[in-house]
């Protein structure tokens, strides 16, 4: 459903994405993890046809994205990392606009909008201008835009940022439903708990290179060979793979300098770091 073949994107001498290969099958939720600036958003932008790769190919539902972007985009839904919308349109009008772009029959658009607005608890606000919406509400509208066309492939870049816990849970449930009905979901996130609980497979990218890919179990066995029985969280694995462990000593040092560290000898942030380490 989603396939990246030797995908590379260079900005001068910097390789934002370096020879990346991955594939996501129908019915699968793929979690894409990585530190800030690792190349997650660039990869997603190439896969959804917003950026041309320097070399390599991206395929969506059997269509080469670079060669036939309009056909590929018809098959996918995309939620960007920041929910920018037209402030002088209402939520309903924006969704209608997206539906018309995709040539969905008007009656179906209206029915689908009603459903999505009810699902995201926006029915009361659907006829207000988006300029008055909060960040979280705009995020919900963007997700609704992506779902309107009932896409076979869904890309979400940090979908839960700005959402309250109830809405974040709703989004997770929706993604699971889409995957269970045969769709492919590609989600980039910083929230490792989401990736661990929700994703069937995860990929970790660092400095543009996909350094690990597989189920969480597979990654555990790769990251800590010989300790298959030990209990490691995805956070531990992530830090181990991306070199985050080197900061632990520094954090411990900063915590010991902080005035509150005297009072909070147990259960403090320092203690938490120790436990995680």
């Amino acid at each position, binding site marked *: 459903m989603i396939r990246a073949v030797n995908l590379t994107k260079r900005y001068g001498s910097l390789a934002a994405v370096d020879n990346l290969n991955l594939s996501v099958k129908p019915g699968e939720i793929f979690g894409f993890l990585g530190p800030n600036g690792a190349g997650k958003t660039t990869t997603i932008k190439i896969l*959804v*046809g*917003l*950026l*041309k790769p320097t070399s390599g190919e991206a395929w969506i539902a059997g269509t080469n994205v*670079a060669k036939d*972007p*309009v*056909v590929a*985009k*018809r098959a*996918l839904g*995309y939620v*960007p990392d*920041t929910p*920018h*919308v*037209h402030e*002088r*349109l*209402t939520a*309903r*009008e*924006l969704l*209608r*606009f*997206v539906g*018309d*772009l*995709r*040539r969905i029959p*008007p*009656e179906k658009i*209206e029915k689908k909008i009603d459903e999505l607005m009810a699902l995201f608890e926006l029915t*009361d606000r*659907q*006829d*207000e*201008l988006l*300029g*008055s919406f909060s960040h979280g509400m705009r995020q919900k509208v963007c997700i609704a*835009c992506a779902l309107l066309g009932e896409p076979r492939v869904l890309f979400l870049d940090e979908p839960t940022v700005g959402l309250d816990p109830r809405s974040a849970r709703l989004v997770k449930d929706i993604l699971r439903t889409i995957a269970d009905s045969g769709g492919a979901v590609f989600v980039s996130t910083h929230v490792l708990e989401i990736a661990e609980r929700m994703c069937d497979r995860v990929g970790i990218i660092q400095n543009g290179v996909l350094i690990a890919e597989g189920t969480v179990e597979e990654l555990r066995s790769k990251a800590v060979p010989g300790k298959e029985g030990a209990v490691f969280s995805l956070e531990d694995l992530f830090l181990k793979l991306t070199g985050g462990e080197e900061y632990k000593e520094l954090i411990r040092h900063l915590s010991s300098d902080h005035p509150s560290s005297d009072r909070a000898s147990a259960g403090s942030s320092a203690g938490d770091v120790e436990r995680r380490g």
Partner: protein
Amino acid sequence: MGFMWTILRRDLRSVFAAKGKAPLKEKLGFIVIALLWAVLGTAFGYGAWRLFGYLAASFGGVPEFRSAVEINLLNASSLFVLSMVILIGIQTTYRSVYESPDLGFLLCQPVPVWAVFGAKYLASYGTMVLMTSLHGLPVWMAFASARGLGAGFYLLATAGFLVLLLACHGCISLILLLAMRYLPGRKMKQMFIAFSAIFGILIVIVSQLVSARITQAGDPAVIIESLGKGQLSKMWYLPTTWMTKGILGSLPEFGVDGLGGWVPLVLLAIGSTYGAIVLSEKWYLAGWSGRADELRPAKKKARRHSGRVSGSRLQGVYWSVLRKDLKMLWRDPVVWYSVVVALIGLGFFAYNMMTAVQKGGLEEAHSGDTLVSSVMMIVMPVFMGSVTSAQTGGVSLSREGEAFWLLRAGPASARALLFAKFTYAALPPLIFTSAFLVFLEFTVLPHVSLWLGLALGVLATLVVAALQIGLDVYFPDFSLKVELGASSGGKGTVKILIGIFSSMGMVGLLAGVLLMPLIFRSGGTGMGLPAVSYLALAAMALGATMFLFGPATKRLHRLLTDM
């Protein structure tokens, strides 16, 4: 005070650092703007210097009369500055004091609120000085030069100008502080925008009335009287009068009480600035945090926004984008402002032409040949429409802003999108031209036949709209936010000005094409246009269409798929 200077210093440094590290294209743009600013200032100054020289030569024998006219001219220029401050100063101050992106960060720091406010207050004051000095200072400098006054007068005039602006800025800030504290932010902004629009339209009407009077009068005495209605005694309550009195008080031959001008002006400047900074400690934080608040609209009123839905509406990229743009246009105060301004301009143009025809002036001017007038009747509405579209449809790709991702991620073909934007850009000139040509049918004004005029108008519109869309596709600025009288930043303002000036140039070129028979003196009698003009215009329209289908479409495809 230390905190305030620290913030201000950082703001200044970041501006210059940003310019220093900017790409060459941006640096060149900055240099061009600075040069343009200097050239315009010099042109204003030179024009005023010639006028004061003319007064000295013509009325040197009657010094009282000369002085009276000079006072009125100087006061009129100060009044113009005051108008500009009201028109754009409110928005400039609001943007700096309430919408600077770093305010959230600064207000979280252990810094007194008044220091943050004070730094932004001074920053917006600096911006206002830069924006208005182009119109305000050159006239005074020209006056001093024409009269051969010493360096002290130049300093005094500059000081008077700066104090006047400080007083105006202080008053605006006080009003903003009070209003933002007690009214919901969005409502407040809407009110200020509406006020600026009405004031701007009033200025257009008054200036057009003066211009009409000057056009009809042709007598220097009437012209001077029209420009200088504001006698100091009649306008004693205005700070501009205080400034004029204060500065001219240093010249005994004017017999003006200088101290009577300086005292209230300086007191107002100090009082309003001090008052704003003191009150900011109480009101600023609450006003800033409530800037996005709005009175929740009643459900019934809110429902109105979505409108009726047709079950058989036209779909696809072209229709959905055009429908969306027109819907947003309907809710945009900029469009109503620019349409009203263009209509007023067109109305006065028709009125002046009709008056000239009634007086027989046109026949005299063109030796019985009405070709120039006929061409003007076609290109003027195209021009007025293109000025409107330069702020709306002509920059509609840029105005997609950050929401452009919706089109990029949607299945939007470049060609359909380009033609939706083109249609949107062409609508104002087309509507203006059609309406004006129909109106001409009922007047005595010289004009070509309705159908020929419409055909020529459509071709001219096509060329101008293609130019605007081409500029927007090749040089998009997705941070552009057009607001009344200005845009969100210098870059946006320059983009719109370039759009307007290049449209003006293109309309001039089109007029030149239509006037070819007159230029080459190869016929063109009566109201007819020779075939060579039709062919040249058709060739330009064909070229514009080919440009849209070819390079512009390719460029837009790139924006959609690789940006």
